[in-house]
């Protein structure tokens, strides 16, 4: 007992003598750095590169004060052969303007030439994956959209009203960035069509989407997106898309292959007619360009 106390005291004094100068702030610095990190909430960034995964939404929103100008293209089916240059002679175009109102809330307006649709949507980050003080394993984003079909309705004998031509989408997007390179998201989705193609078709449709992203370099990632319909319009198929994202500063280029012709939520999830095994595959791309429209007040 005595000896140990003496040893301890000797140790203390010798260590003091060794310093000559006492409290060494270098030694405590690393420890403090770790403590600082524990006491701070760090939100996960860049779970996905863009607010769209391929056809559908990802959990990401556009930052506050930014506008995202989007052009999406779907060319014709690859199986149309060389006469149509494997579909390149035909293109369906989507033009959209998305705005980040806050860092968690965004709205968007778009027009798609498929069924000449107008769409408006809002998207809000409910939960954000984070580490540190607040630890949250997943991100959850809510997306709601209203889609109006415009143009001449040639597929019906009676004239449809505006409300007949509306469809509404509500989607919960649940995502986790598992590592620097791998992210996964699951999208339970509800779509309501005011009018449906067939007499026995349901007005309320449910689907579950799944999306993954694997980065292959800092600027390039490979993505896949699949929507399984729990109930569907008869004769329509599930949407599958495979794609590559290439990022160049303010632009994101998304190149993909998909069997979906439509680019709005109700259309690509529930109005897809193409079959992959038939070669009913569209080559397509999304281009997203971010513009600063409001300076951040730091």
């Amino acid at each position: 007992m005595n000896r140990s106390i003496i040893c301890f005291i000797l140790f203390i004094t010798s260590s003091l003598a060794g310093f000559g100068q006492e409290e060494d702030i270098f030694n405590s610095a690393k420890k403090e750095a770790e403590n600082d990190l524990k006491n701070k909430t760090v939100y996960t960034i860049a779970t996905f590169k863009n607010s769209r995964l391929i056809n559908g939404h990802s959990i990401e929103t556009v930052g506050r004060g930014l506008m995202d100008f989007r052009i999406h293209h779907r060319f014709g089916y690859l199986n149309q052969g060389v006469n149509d240059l494997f579909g390149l002679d035909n293109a369906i175009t989507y033009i959209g303007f998305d705005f980040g109102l806050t860092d968690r809330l965004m709205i968007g307006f778009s027009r798609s030439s498929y069924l000449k649709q107008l769409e408006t949507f809002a998207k809000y980050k409910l939960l954000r994956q984070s580490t540190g003080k607040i630890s949250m394993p997943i991100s959850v984003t809510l997306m709601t959209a209203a889609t109006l079909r415009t143009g001449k309705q040639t597929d019906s004998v009676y004239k449809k009203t505006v409300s007949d031509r509306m469809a509404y989408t509500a989607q919960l997007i649940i995502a986790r960035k598992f590592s620097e390179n791998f992210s996964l998201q699951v999208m339970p989705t509800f779509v309501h069509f005011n009018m449906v193609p067939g007499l026995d078709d349901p007005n309320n449709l449910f689907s579950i989407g799944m999306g993954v992203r694997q980065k292959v370099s800092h600027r390039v990632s490979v993505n896949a997106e699949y929507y399984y319909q729990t109930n569907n319009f008869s004769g329509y198929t599930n949407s599958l898309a495979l794609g590559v994202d290439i990022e160049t500063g303010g632009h994101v280029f998304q190149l993909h292959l998909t069997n979906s012709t439509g680019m709005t939520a109700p259309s690509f999830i529930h109005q897809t007619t193409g079959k992959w095994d038939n070669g009913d595959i569209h080559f397509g791309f999304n281009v997203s360009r971010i513009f600063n429209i409001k300076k951040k007040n730091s």
Partner: protein
Amino acid sequence: MKKIFIILCCCLLTVVSFSQKVYQTKSAKISFFSSTPLQNIEATNNEGSSKLSTNGQVVMMIAIRSFVFENSLMQEHFNENYMESDKFPKAIFMGNITNLADINFSKDGTYTANVEGSLEIHGVKNNIKTQVEINIKQNKITAKTSFSINVKDYGIKGNYIGSKIAKTIKIAVNAIYE
């Protein structure tokens, strides 16, 4: 008796040893500026934690994620592609004032301190030298400095398609210690 004597000695020693004073701050302001033909990039971090000891030791730590840019996309690119801040969350400077004799911490006034030490950014350590303007007033110390670093010295690559980042980045530090 002897034991008590030793303990007393100990106490005395520690008392002597802590005559050194450590000033600190949790809100040092660090900003950096880089200019490229394409655009000027500027970011500010107001959460630097720093200690300054009268024995000449200086430590400063900043969380890379706390840098604020004018838009969130730049901020995301900075953290994800350039700084890889999930892997390297902190930048740390540890150094010493080399002309400690010129500075009287108990007397108000303005002094120029030569500081030398190692700066760790992006997991890479380099030695830097800079002159710091120190202003002492009523036990408050204001320290200001600015210096430039070469991006490639710290292994920071943008691997950006069709874009270049500046070769050198100017860093300015402004801290008020108490």
